[in-house]
């Protein structure tokens, strides 16, 4: 029974990962590089980069412990991340963890800048390391999908139904969190509005026939709650919570539309 449960959980995680692997070209800060189209060949490099990053951050934290703020440059924490190819690999493949990594990096940097006790800094460092390892796992899984052609198939898919469109909306909302965690609030808000206008707005008509209150809720989320949280400098966790609530509503929407489609009369 335990085996079945864990197997089921594992399958759900994998399905979730497939659904969340990003479907359009990523836009990392720097050049993305061809390596993202051949992840399998670069897994060793990514693993080395993760270890190197962890060592670099650990050295910064140790220097802070020895000499305080004057002994370190907190900016270096983010600069380390900008130097690695792993950055583009995770950004172009699994956006939720990408957001967590940014959150971890800024957590460490801000703890140093605020001259927090070393225990607090170590907590932030642990969270960063955890997200980096999680990211490496996601890239390894993405490499498998890529090798089997699954990711390429998803990348080439244009939504042909409202249900597929809602899946894309969820992926784009993950990207909103990622960009906000990356300290790019204007880009995050821009993605919110683009997602509304170019994706969600196109399926609202179908959805409102099924549950007008749900559409009303999501309208408010897209046009008020989420952009206001970002523009009001809410925490990344708070923005992620809003997005997760929206994704729960989107899941309900997807179920309603699937049911409606199943009951739709045939054309001929």
């Amino acid at each position: 029974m335990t085996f079945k449960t864990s197997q089921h959980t594992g399958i759900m995680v994998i399905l979730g990962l497939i659904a969340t692997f990003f479907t359009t070209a990523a836009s990392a800060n720097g050049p993305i590089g061809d390596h993202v189209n051949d992840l399998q060949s670069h897994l060793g490099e990514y693993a080395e980069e993760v270890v190197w990053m962890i060592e670099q951050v650990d050295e910064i934290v140790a220097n802070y412990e020895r000499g305080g703020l004057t002994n370190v440059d907190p900016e270096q924490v983010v600069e380390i991340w900008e130097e690695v190819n792993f950055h583009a690999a995770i950004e172009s493949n699994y956006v939720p963890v990408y957001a967590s990594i940014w959150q971890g990096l800024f957590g460490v940097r801000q703890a140093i800048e605020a001259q927090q006790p070393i225990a607090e800094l170590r907590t932030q460092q642990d969270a960063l390391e955890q997200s980096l390892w999680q990211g490496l796992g996601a890239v390894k899984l993405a490499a498998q999908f890529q090798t089997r052609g699954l990711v390429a198939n998803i990348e080439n898919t244009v939504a042909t139904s409202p249900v597929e469109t809602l899946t894309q909306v969820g992926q784009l909302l993950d990207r909103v969190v990622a960009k906000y965690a990356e300290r790019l609030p204007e880009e995050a808000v821009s993605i919110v509005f683009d997602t509304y206008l170019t994706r969600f707005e196109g399926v609202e008509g179908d959805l409102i026939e099924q549950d007008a209150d749900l559409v009303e809720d999501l309208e408010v989320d897209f046009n008020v709650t989420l952009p206001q949280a970002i523009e009001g400098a809410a925490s990344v966790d708070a923005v992620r919570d809003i997005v997760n609530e929206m994704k729960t509503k989107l899941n309900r929407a997807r179920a309603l539309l699937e049911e409606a489609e199943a009951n739709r009369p045939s054309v001929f």
Partner: protein
Amino acid sequence: MLPGGLLAQESQAKIALSVEELPALEGELTLYLGRGEGGLYENVLDAIQQRNPALELNIRRGPTAALANAIVAESRAGVRRANLFWAVDTGAIGLISNEGLARELPQDLTNQLQANFRYEKWSPITGRIRTLPYNTERLTAADVPDDVMAVPDSGLSIGWAPAYASFQSFVTAMRLLEGEQATGEWLQKMDKVARSYAGELGVVMAVERGEVDMGFANHYYTLRLKAGKPDATVDLAFTNNDAGCLVNASGIVALSEGDLPINFIRYLLTREVQSFLSSEAFEIPLVDGVAPPQGLPDLATIQPPDINLTRLADLRPTLDLMRDVGVL
């Protein structure tokens, strides 16, 4: 061309044919499909494909304007990949027509359409009408101006979505019907009294909530809201013979010679497809003999302006005007 018997029958009755009367489709077709209402155009295409197993239908999907630009670019490069282009708005069709890429359609096909929707080189498929949704707890239809130019001075609170493509087509129609100056003045006055929303469903929902008394929106948003919420406090009003009740259409263009593209278009004008898009997408059938969507008066009882829809392709001056007056 249709078989002679069918042609005679069609010319007399001018009502929608049944799919049972159409020839089977055989061969390869490439259709460029602009994004439509939800996925319902996909349902139609799937049904046509299933009914015609000898048809190899390739579909390229994308934003309507982008596909129109692709067709023009391919033509200029001496390539033709698409046999048909099904667009959600007539502006894109105007672009194709202006490039001389659309082939002429047979008269027995265009005659199936209602008289105001017959064009030589493209076929409207279904229509949508501009409306003034109003809050029924605050107003009656008689309180809503029947002249769109009078709306800004009505004293009513108004919702609009000026960034929305359908709204911009409506402004284009106003520009063509009323002139640049009158349209610019109308936009300026509206800008002072209207509340902006991102999309037109948002406008309709705001009307229903009572945030505004009335708004500007395509008809189907109100009908769909009322389908999901029958007690919604919103209803439709119409202006009279001006851009406020413009009927725009989705449409299709044949880009290559031969019977196959033409016969494919015939399938879209069948009463089965027209009825499906009417009942499921709340779009307005443009062939005779098919009922309009529930909740919408018969088009014959409304007086839309007489305007060649392909002229709505002239969008650039509209955007310039809207920017000049500060609406965009």
